[in-house]
């Protein structure tokens, strides 16, 4: 360190200077709030007052109250289903876009896929409610085709929530998988074909492993965004069951019980961190 030339020292100072604004912002408005929330989760709410002695009361209450643990389980279940279905639907679409669609039209195809998501998220969710409701488009469609005798409802249940989520995440995953596919050199697959592998084996042993990073990035984003989302289950789920974000909002909106809400938020973060650790090796940012 003492052998630093003045130029190296000023360079280092400049580097820190450039970095500092972003660091300070993240520390002040991201890290500090999380720490404060962590503190809150260890405090309690009694009547209208905040009791600031540390205790694991809230976490104990979480495990004691059946409906809270259930909300976490429901959230994980729904998120896993959504991720799986979205990946299964998006992969073929991404492949078709990357390989079958003429390159001239690929950008247009992508833009078309993203376009519907530029309506307001809240309004889009309500549109799904109307499509799936008993007097809605889907019901009328089935009636007209003669497949059902009476109006049918697909809304106000977990299925509707899943449909609402999958609608958005299919688009997201298509993008990440497509980006991955475009980066692949076609020579890998040609080499496999030259060595005598059929299309199925090529896919399984060559293409799939090579596109795994794209899948994992998309799947991880899907998981994080889906498990923390409040609107879609609130609008489409009909309160048939409670998911964790809804349980959190109940604590905040109806009881102003920030300690309990913070504890639930900490638990949610812990779950997401576990998933992150499991996917870590595909989620590194590399330089070009």
């Amino acid at each position, binding site marked *: 360190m003492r052998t630093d030339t003045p130029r190296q020292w000023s360079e280092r100072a400049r580097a820190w200077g450039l970095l500092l604004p972003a660091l300070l912002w993240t520390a002040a408005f991201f890290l500090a709030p999380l720490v404060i929330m962590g503190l809150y989760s260890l405090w309690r709410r009694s009547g*209208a007052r905040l009791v600031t002695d540390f205790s694991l009361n809230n976490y104990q209450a979480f495990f004691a109250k059946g409906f809270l643990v259930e909300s976490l389980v429901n959230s994980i279940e729904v998120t896993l289903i959504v991720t799986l279905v979205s990946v299964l639907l998006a992969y073929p679409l991404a492949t078709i876009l990357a390989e079958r669609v003429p390159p001239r039209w690929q950008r247009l195809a992508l833009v078309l896929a993203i376009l519907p998501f530029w309506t307001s998220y809240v309004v889009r969710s309500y549109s799904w409610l109307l499509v799936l409701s008993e007097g809605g488009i889907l019901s009328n469609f089935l009636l007209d085709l003669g497949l059902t005798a009476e109006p049918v409802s697909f809304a106000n249940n977990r299925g509707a929530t899943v449909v609402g989520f999958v609608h958005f995440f299919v688009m997201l995953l298509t993008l990440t998988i497509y980006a991955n596919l475009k980066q692949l050199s076609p020579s890998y697959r040609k080499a496999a074909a030259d060595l005598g592998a059929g299309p199925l084996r090529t896919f399984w042993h060559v293409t799939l492993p090579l596109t795994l990073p794209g899948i994992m990035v998309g799947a991880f984003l899907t998981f994080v965004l889906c498990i923390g989302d409040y609107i879609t289950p609130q609008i489409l789920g009909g309160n048939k069951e409670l998911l964790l974000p809804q349980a959190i909002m109940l604590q905040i909106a*109806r009881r102003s019980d920030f300690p309990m809400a913070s504890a639930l938020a900490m638990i949610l973060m812990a779950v997401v961190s576990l998933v992150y650790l499991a996917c870590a090796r595909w989620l590194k940012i590399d330089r070009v």
Partner: protein
Amino acid sequence: MTSRNRGITRRRGLLLGAAVAAASLSVSATASATEELNALVWCDHTDPALIAPFEEANDVRVNLKEYEGTGSALAIVEQSQPGDWDVFVIDGVDVPRVVEAGLLAELPADQLPLADTFEQVKMTDVTHVDGKMYAIMEKFGYNVISYDKSKVDPADMRDLTMLWSDKYKGRIAVYDYYIPLMDLVALKMGMKPSDITADKLPAMKEELFKLKDNAAMVGEVVSSTTALATGEADILLGGGEWAVAVMQAENPDLDWVLPDQGGILWAQSLAVFKDSKKKDLAVKFVQYIMSPEGQARLATSSCFWGMPANKKAGAVLTAEQKTALRWDEQEGFLAKSYRYFIPDADLDAAMLDVWSEFLQH
């Protein structure tokens, strides 16, 4: 890679960005030369037809924040600074505990038309504390049963227990507000709402679970009334004139009734915050809402309808509106209805837990 091309791109892009930014900032910069009044209200107060006349007459801007459920309102107040709020629309029965929390200012009783309100709705036992008036009732209605009379047997709707039978399985929407709904469950069990105690909760939970099995969905004002409108559900438990009157013009099959076991009376009141910095303006607002014209507009407001507390509003309402509100049957209804039961903090938390389990079931 000619720098000329790049230059055009970058410059054009930057100019475009700057133009849009300038345009948007000018759009959102509201000229706040007029005075402002901040009100924490139920959704029926956000109807421009109600607020605009007051704003124009007094040259003020009324900022409205709406909420559902007194717990939410208290949460909002708690998360604000003193002086943030001026006017409060609050469930009548919750006034005592809000007064106790030191939030409300005394109202000038002589300047408000208390004498003109319906007798049973005056509720001076809750709006007055130690002889001082802290709130005035502005609107009331019932949490009972709304239904589509082309799809269900209206005679069945007079009996609460029918909703627990299999006849209407999957056809019922439940209004998501735990206090009146649990009071209705108490009525079904043969109790009065004021009889609810902690030891009765397990039995109530059982009833609620059975109800959930019969329910198509549970939702707040919009989703539950939408369910009724789209045909997703044929019955709304907890509904009343407030749920159907708005839609009756387009769907005359929607109706509501007080079951034989009795109804739950909801009554909302107006109050002024103690820390408000604009008390005179706030009182003016209260006077406007309590005037016959204000009452008539409030009664037929776009979010939900309800009976105006001021009888003189009857002169301003049209005949159709009064029929929809069942103006002439009010005396009978009021005789058979019970107020919301207000639990203490511990019982309240316990009831909320039971309700959360109901939602989760």
